[in-house]
C-alpha cells in the first residue's frame, strides 16, 4: 500500500461514521426513560446500591452496627435513633443501612450463580436437543419440584449457617427458572430464518451461536435477572428469619425481622423498618424489571 492510497482513504469519510445512528442500547434506554414509574424505581435501586456500597465507610461496624448499649435498649424512634433501638441497644437505622450490604450482596451473588449455571444448561439444552436436552430438563424439573424454601433449608442445614452458604442455596434454587427461560429463548431463535441464513453463507455453528443466537436471547434473561434478584432477597430474608441464613449478629434484614419478632407489640419499630426496607427494595427491583421488559419489547410490537 503506497502512501497515496493511505492519504486518499483518510480523506474520504467512512460512510459508517457519516451516518452514525443511535445504538440499540441507546434506543432501549430512551424507551426506558419514558416510563416514569420505572425511572423512579431505578433511582431507588441506585440509592440503595449506593447505601450498600458506602455503608462501610459511613458507619463503623463495631460501634454503630453491633455495639451493644443496654442502657438505650428498646427506645422508640427519635432524632438520635431514627428507627429506634433494639433489645440490645443497637441503633436500628444503622443496622438497616448496613443490612443493605448483606441483603443486596446475597441477592446479587445468588442470582449470578443461578444465571451462570442456568444459562449454560439452558442454552445447551435448547440448542442441541435430543437426549442432552432431556437429561438436563429432567434434572432441572426435579430441582424445581422442591419448594425453594425447603431446598434452601436443606442446603443450609447440610452446609451450615453463613452468608456464603446462603448465597449458594439461593443460587441453586434460582437455576431452574434460568434454565427454562434460556432454553425457551434458544428454541425460538434457533428456528428463525436468519439462523438458517447464517448457515447458508457458511458460518460455523460456534459463530452462529455466539453471534446470532445468544444476543437475541438476552432480553428475557435480563428481565428475569432483575426480577429474580428481588425474590432472592425475599428468600434470603426468609431463611435468615428462620435462623438459617446469616450468622448472628449480622444485620441482614430477615435476621432483623427475626430478632424483633418477640417485641412486635411493645417495640413494633424493630420489625417495621427492616420489613419496609425489604418491601421497598423488592418493589423497586420488580418495577425496574417490568420497565426493562417493556423497553426491550417494543421492537416486536412494531
Amino acid at each position, binding site marked *: 500500500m503506497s502512501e497515496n492510497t493511505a492519504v486518499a482513504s483518510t480523506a474520504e469519510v467512512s460512510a459508517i461514521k457519516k451516518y452514525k445512528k443511535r445504538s440499540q442500547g441507546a434506543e432501549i434506554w430512551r424507551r426506558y426513560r419514558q416510563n416514569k414509574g420505572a425511572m423512579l424505581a431505578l433511582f431507588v435501586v441506585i440509592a440503595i446500591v449506593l447505601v450498600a456500597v458506602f455503608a462501610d465507610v459511613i458507619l463503623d461496624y463495631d460501634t454503630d452496627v453491633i455495639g451493644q448499649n443496654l442502657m438505650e435498649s428498646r427506645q422508640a424512634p427519635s432524632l438520635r435513633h431514627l428507627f429506634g433501638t433494639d433489645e440490645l441497644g443497637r441503633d436500628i437505622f444503622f443496622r438497616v443501612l448496613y443490612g443493605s450490604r448483606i441483603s443486596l450482596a446475597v441477592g446479587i451473588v445468588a442470582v449470578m450463580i443461578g444465571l451462570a449455571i442456568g444459562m449454560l444448561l439452558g442454552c445447551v439444552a435448547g440448542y442441541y436437543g435430543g437426549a442432552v436436552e432431556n437429561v438436563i430438563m429432567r434434572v432441572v424439573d426435579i430441582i424445581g419440584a422442591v419448594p425453594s424454601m425447603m431446598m434452601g433449608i436443606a442446603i443450609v442445614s447440610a452446609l451450615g449457617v453463613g452468608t456464603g452458604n446462603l448465597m449458594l442455596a439461593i443460587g441453586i434454587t434460582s437455576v431452574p427458572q434460568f434454565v427454562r427461560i434460556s432454553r425457551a429463548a434458544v428454541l425460538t431463535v434457533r428456528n428463525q430464518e436468519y439462523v438458517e441464513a447464517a448457515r447458508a453463507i457458511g458460518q460455523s455453528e460456534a459463530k452462529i451461536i455466539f453471534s*446470532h443466537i445468544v444476543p437475541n436471547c438476552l432480553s428475557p434473561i435480563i428481565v428475569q435477572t432483575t426480577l429474580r434478584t428481588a425474590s432472592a432477597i425475599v428468600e434470603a430474608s426468609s431463611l435468615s428469619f428462620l435462623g438459617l441464613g446469616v450468622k448472628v449478629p449480622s444485620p441482614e434484614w430477615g435476621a432483623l425481622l427475626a430478632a424483633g419478632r418477640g417485641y412486635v407489640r411493645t417495640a413494633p419499630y424493630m420489625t417495621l423498618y427492616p420489613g419496609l426496607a425489604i418491601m421497598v427494595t423488592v418493589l423497586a427491583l420488580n418495577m425496574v424489571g417490568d420497565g426493562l421488559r417493556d423497553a426491550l419489547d417494543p421492537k416486536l410490537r412494531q
Partner: protein
Amino acid sequence: MADVILQVEHLKKYFSSGGGILHAVDDVSFTLERGKTLGVVGESGCGKSTLGRTILRLIEPTSGKVLFDGVDVASLRRGPLRKARKDMQIIFQDPFSSLDPRKTVFQIITESITTQRLMTDRRQIEQRVLELMDTVGLAERLINTYPHELDGGRRQRIGIARALAMDPKFIVCDEPVSALDVSIQAQILNLLRKLQRERGLTYMFITHDLAVVHHLADEIAVMYLGRIVEKAPAVELFEHPMHPYTQALLSAIPVPEIMPDRKRILLRGEISSPIDPPDECRFAKRCNRACDRCHAGEPQLTEVLPGHFVACPFHD
C-alpha cells in the same frame, strides 16, 4: 452441448413423522443451464421449499445427487461444503425473519464477505458493502439502520445484497416477493432480472404465483406432493399445459382482466397426505379424468414433446 450448472438426480427428502414417513421431496431430477431461470411452482405442501433447501444442503438429503458444476454437493464434507456455499446462495421469503434483528444493514452484508474470507481490509469491505447497496437500490444513508426500521421491500433488498455479496453463480429464490406489496413486487422482480442479465446468474425461482414465474422463468416445473408432474419451457407450459393439475392451476389464477366466459376448472377436495403415499398417481383423487391406469402405479415423467415432460398416463 448445453452448459449445465446444476444437475439434480433422484433427490429424495423424507421426514419421519408421527405415524409414518413424510415424503417431502420424492425422486426429483432435473438439469439447469447456466444463466437460466427454472421456475418451481406448486401450492403449499408440494415440497418446493424443501427442494430448494435440500439442493443447497440446508436440509440433509435422504438420498440422491446434487451435481453443482460437476461436484456432488450432497456428499461433500463440512469444510469443502462451506467453501462451496460461496457459489450457491438463497434469498428467503420472509424479509422480517430472515434478517438478524440485532444487526445493522452493514453488519448483515459484511457477514457474507467475512465468513467466506473474501476480504480483510476494513476500507475495502466498506466499499464493497456500499457497492452492493447501490446495486440493489438501498440508499447509502441506511447503512447503520436496523431491519425493523425499514419496510418489507427494503429488507428484501438487504437479503438480496447479502446473497450477492460473495458473487455466487446460483441463487435459490424462495418466494422472494410473496410477502411484499404489489407495487414493490414489480421493483424487486425487475431488480432480480437485471442482476441475472448483468452477472449471468442462474436462478431457481420458487413460488406459488404462476403469474410471477411466467414473467421471469425460462423453464417451469410444476410440483405436487413432492414430485414434478410437469416440466416445460415457460411459454409452452402456459400455452399447452398437459397435466390436469397444471391445467387446474392455470385456470385458477386470477387475471386482472374482465373475462366473462372464463371456464374455471375446479378441483375436488383437498391435497392428500404426504405421509406414506400409496403407489399410484397422487393427484388421482382430485382429478376429473382419473381412470384405472392412474391407480396402477406412480406415473413417471416422460418427454411428450421436445423439452416438455409430463407425468400422466394419458400422455404416455
